[in-house]
């Protein structure tokens, strides 16, 4: 059985797709056979972040409708043999995905021997977001240290505890909080909620803290998930987060202000 992980947030623009892409790459790099699925029907973007946008022939909706086989629609990543992308459809029909269709695709992926299926949820709490989370074993709730994102995350946590298959069977989806766009400098200045603040408000520990860093945009420009930029703080922070999701214990990095020396203060650094 494949383990299904939904990457969700409620609010848009917090880094769901960036996280889905890096999480999937990280799992594949750790030797896990991984599929990453874009649930944002109508607004396909995961392919762009993964760098496979020109190789999309068939999409998720084609598979659900039986217009293509799963094998035909899965795009094999060029960096990792054990990583596959299933792109979202560009159709404007919001009802293109059905519960039964999604369930069948997830089951077939499990039968194909996938270890992990990462579901990249659309923003909002409508059908696409609901379908992305419904079959999940685990959830990575992406949150920015900002009031609207924290509030929406709490809504999502409420839905994970009530509107999922696990919840209906009296079980719980395993929840992880992933804090992105974190700026230790602004936290120190009192301008930004701290890790502790967010954990306390939402009552959940963070599985990773991704610092705000220019490499995130550079990576999406290039179509190379930021986790593969091993020199960047954001890439290293994602690597740590994936290790923690796989059960490893690692200390948090890049969560405090680096003290600059006198010279770098004077001459910039």
């Amino acid at each position, binding site marked *: 059985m494949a383990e299904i992980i939904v990457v969700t947030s409620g609010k848009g623009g917090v880094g769901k797709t960036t996280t889905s892409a890096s999480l999937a790459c990280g799992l594949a790099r750790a030797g896990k056979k991984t599929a990453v699925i874009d649930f944002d029907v109508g607004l396909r973007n995961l392919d762009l972040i993964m760098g496979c946008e020109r190789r999309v022939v068939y999409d998720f909706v084609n598979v659900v409708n039986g217009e293509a086989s799963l094998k035909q629609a899965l795009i094999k990543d060029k960096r990792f043999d054990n990583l596959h992308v299933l792109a979202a459809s560009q159709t404007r029909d919001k009802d293109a995905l059905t519960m039964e269709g999604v369930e069948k695709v997830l089951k077939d992926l499990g039968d194909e021997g996938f270890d992990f299926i990462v579901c990249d949820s659309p923003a909002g709490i409508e059908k696409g977001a609901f379908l992305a989370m419904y079959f999940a074993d685990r959830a990575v709730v992406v949150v920015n240290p900002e009031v609207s994102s924290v509030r929406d995350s709490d809504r999502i946590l409420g839905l994970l505890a009530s509107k999922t298959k696990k919840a209906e069977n009296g079980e719980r989806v395993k929840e992880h909080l992933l804090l992105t766009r974190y700026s230790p400098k602004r936290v120190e200045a*009192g301008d930004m909620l701290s890790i502790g603040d967010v954990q306390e408000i*939402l009552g959940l520990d963070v599985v990773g803290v991704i610092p705000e860093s220019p490499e995130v945009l550079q990576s999406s420009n290039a179509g190379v998930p930021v986790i593969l930029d091993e020199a960047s703080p954001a890439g290293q922070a994602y690597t740590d987060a994936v290790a923690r999701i796989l059960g490893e214990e690692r200390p948090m990095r890049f969560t405090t202000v680096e003290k600059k020396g006198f010279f770098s203060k004077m001459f910039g650094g």
Partner: protein
Amino acid sequence: MGILDFLTQRNKNTANVAKSRLQILIQQERSMRGAPDYLPLLQRELLEVIRKYINVDSDAVKVDLHKDGDSELLDISVQLPEKPAAANG
């Protein structure tokens, strides 16, 4: 950072403001979670009725659903405006 920024921004910890606002809001939203959909409407209509007779603030009516084991308690509280000290004989 200029000296002026330094002086004016010193006492402004907006993160603390954000935290306390969120804590109040989320506690309230969690208490409404799983509650019937009609509660917000009930609250609004109660407010309208009460306002026909008493001039209360728009946040004076609170409707909460408490669960205690199997029983549920609908808790409606109305905060009346303070009377001026001299009035009332």
